[in-house]
């Protein structure tokens, strides 16, 4: 009887802890009061190529812009009534990331977006109240966009065909708690540039697993110490046992996260030589710019300085890294530190993916606001321009 009481108390405690972590209010019903179910065929491919495949929508190709988008119209659905989203894809490639797109009645010209956990082959459930602050008002259009995972996957190999099977929206209910926590804590989130600073696991905006387990563990310890008098003499050991259990639970989640991240790396790079892997850069466009630039500047060791500018700091720094061992540095820091007349006469200037910097053919100058550099163009094509500084005669 005592054991039964203890088990019941523990189950109740963890239901409350996990339910709270899942964001389910105590007053919520067990099953949803309102639901909207959509099949894949209800969505129209706006960008990319899609065909109906039974009740699903098969996405066979992305557009030249490198992404695909499918949407469906909704009849003024109240966001607050339907915050739980469930989606089901099949064969969704690990190399793509999924973004929810929706439009609100109060802002018909704006497209709202929210990053979604990778769908894999099963259903994923997300609480849109936590995933996006924009999920409010009345929703008139809903859809999904698929992109190559940013800064991680080379766009040229990112796409493979997949199917959108079905999508559901429902009101908050207790039976959504387990799948919400599963995708919240165990959902796949790819490596990002922020990963080196902060470990992000599961769905964005989901409740903190360490916080939930720390509180759950503390409450479990208190409950066990309260209900089992004979254990009170060994409280430290009990506390350590509970703490270790919580730690192991967190670690299982951490290992799962590491493993799923590693599967993407494996899918891109496994079985390839280093030369092949080196070519598979996530920013293969910038790597291409570097190759092109080399053809127009002097070889490393010549003493020529190469100054690089781009509207994107990431692209600028990546281009400098790809250009090594060419003697390259950011153009902006050169401009702020050294007056242009002091620059070496053969200085090369590389402008990559920039709308701020432009070449003025009439005056043969590079311009960005008040900054003007007299140059001779060596190559201009697409998003790349390579120039040589033209110093005024003394």
């Amino acid at each position: 009887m005592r054991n039964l009481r203890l088990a019941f108390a523990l189950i109740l405690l963890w239901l409350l802890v996990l339910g709270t972590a899942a964001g389910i209010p105590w007053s919520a019903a067990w099953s949803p009061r309102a639901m909207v179910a959509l099949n894949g065929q209800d969505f129209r491919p706006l960008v990319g190529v899609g065909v109906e495949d039974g009740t699903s929508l098969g996405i066979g190709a992305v557009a030249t812009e490198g992404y695909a988008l499918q949407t469906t119209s909704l009849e003024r659905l109240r966001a607050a009534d339907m915050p739980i989203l469930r989606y089901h894809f099949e064969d969704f490639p690990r190399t793509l990331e999924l973004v929810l797109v929706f439009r609100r009645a109060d802002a018909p010209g704006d497209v709202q977006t929210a990053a979604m956990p990778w769908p894999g082959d099963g259903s994923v459930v997300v609480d849109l109240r936590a995933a996006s602050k924009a999920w409010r008002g009345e929703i008139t259009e809903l859809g999904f966009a698929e992109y190559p995972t940013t800064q991680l996957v080379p766009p040229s190999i990112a796409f493979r065909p997949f199917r959108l099977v079905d999508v559901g929206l429902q009101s908050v209910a207790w039976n959504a708690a387990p799948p919400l926590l599963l995708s919240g804590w165990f959902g796949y989130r790819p490596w990002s540039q922020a990963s080196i600073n902060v470990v992000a696991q599961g769905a964005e905006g989901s409740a903190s697993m360490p916080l939930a387990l720390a509180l759950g563990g503390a409450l479990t310890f208190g409950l066990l110490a309260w209900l089992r008098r004979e254990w009170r003499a060994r409280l430290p050991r009990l506390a350590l046992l509970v703490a270790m259990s919580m730690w192991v639970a967190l670690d299982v989640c951490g290992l799962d996260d590491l493993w799923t991240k590693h599967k993407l790396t494996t899918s891109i790079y496994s079985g390839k030589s280093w030369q092949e892997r080196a070519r598979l850069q996530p920013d293969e466009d910038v790597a291409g710019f570097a190759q092109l630039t080399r053809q127009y500047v002097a070889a490393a060791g010549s003493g020529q300085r190469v100054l690089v500018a781009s509207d994107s700091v990431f692209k600028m720094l990546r281009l400098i890294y790809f250009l090594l061992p060419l003697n390259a540095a950011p153009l902006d820091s050169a401009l702020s530190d050294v007056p242009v007349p002091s620059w070496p006469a053969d200085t090369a200037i590389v402008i990559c993916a920039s709308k701020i910097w432009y070449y003025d053919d009439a005056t043969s100058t590079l311009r960005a606001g008040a900054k003007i550099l007299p140059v001779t163009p060596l190559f201009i094509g697409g998003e790349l321009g390579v120039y040589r500084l033209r110093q005024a005669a003394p």
Partner: protein
Amino acid sequence: MTTAYLLAWFVAIAAGTLPMFGLSVSMHAGRTATVCGYGIVLGMLLTAAVTALTARADTAQAWVQAAPWLVAFAVTATAAAYWMQRRAGRAAPSLDGDDVGYWPRLAAIVALASLIWRGSILASELLLRPTFPWDAWDAWAVKSKTWYLLGHYAAFVPPAEWLPRAGADLYSGPAWAYPSTVGWLQVWFASAAGDWIEPLVNLPWFALWVGLLLGHYGQWRALGLDRTRALIFVYLLGSLPLLAVHVALAGYADLWVATIFGFGVLAWLRWQEQGDRAQLALALICAAILPSLKFEGMIWCLTLVATIGLGALPPRWRWRSALIAAAGLLIAAVIGQSHALFAAIGWVRSGTRIVDVPVIGSLSLSWHTPAAVGIARSLFVQSNWHLLWWLAGPIVAWRWRSLRASDSLGLCALLLLGCLGLLVFLFVFTDAAGWAESYTAVNRLVMHITPAVVTLLALLLREPRVAPIPIRTDAGPDRPPDRA
């Protein structure tokens, strides 16, 4: 992997482990793990130093240039260390065998299996991908890639000096001033691999993780943890998510700082508790290495050296010395616009609500609530540290008597409290608050002291009856060694 690359690994590891064997003639518990752990890490850093000194003219063949020097140094250092340790004529301490139950032992085995599984994922991830994280290619690998592909060393200078001197073989970049120790290690491995092959150049980060865990296991054993507890704590350390990320996405210097600071604290603790002068030398070597890894290493070096100095003083002198030093700093700060000399970080200027630290910049002083929230979230809410910071407070409170009773643990706690205090001050009271609010640096800086924090918690939870036997009685601190 070529034979040359494997040979380069062998030489680098042997250069560290052989002298470590020489230093550890006594058969203390965990000796092999200590020797291997410290040996791997210090061997790699020694390799970087020798490469920097001997291979500047021919970086493409850096490992061929540096290997003979490294071997000669290793052999000499091993002989010297062995000779000095033999002369010390120390008795070999021993520990009781483990007397733990079935379940803890099973838990330790499962923990070990989990670490091996994690290690295999990390190694595979590292060996597959090109360098990924931002500062790894933007800051830390720029010099090494330049030097290796250029074929020789070239100085990195500020842009103002670089651009006008066109003829000079100078380079520049956003991270021109960063320490280059880790970079020279990459040059060594690139030259052995025969090309700039990023996974092979980054593989030392995996060896670093292995060395970190082995070194901590060995030293914890030597400091009195039984095998099961030591294994469980190795699991706790090895399972910390942010540490694993820094291996999988190799290229940052923070894990190096964390490892060397942790090693330094462990070696110092062994000197404090067992009076082993070789460990004191090791602690000082670790402290000296820290500034060569990263700028922040100077701060940790100063705190570690200050603690070592404090620990060497007779207890009655400690507080007096600390108060005099604190008063000196306070006066310097209060006077305003005064200068306080901090060894290698240059002049630290303090004025009204301004602190000017050369390696960091000018920081205005004010309270930043979002940064405080950011720190709390980093430690307790995000998945960076599992439950480490949740458990640290309760364990210290629970073992408060042990902490008070042990001179060395008390000093260790003081050191870590001081380090945490510095971080909290930096992030909550200065402009560096943005790094905590955006979570860009706060966790990486906390990581620097994390292995040492795990050490403190492990030693607080060691069984008092198996505290290690002191191995030297002729010199050292003028008090009986601790028996925590």
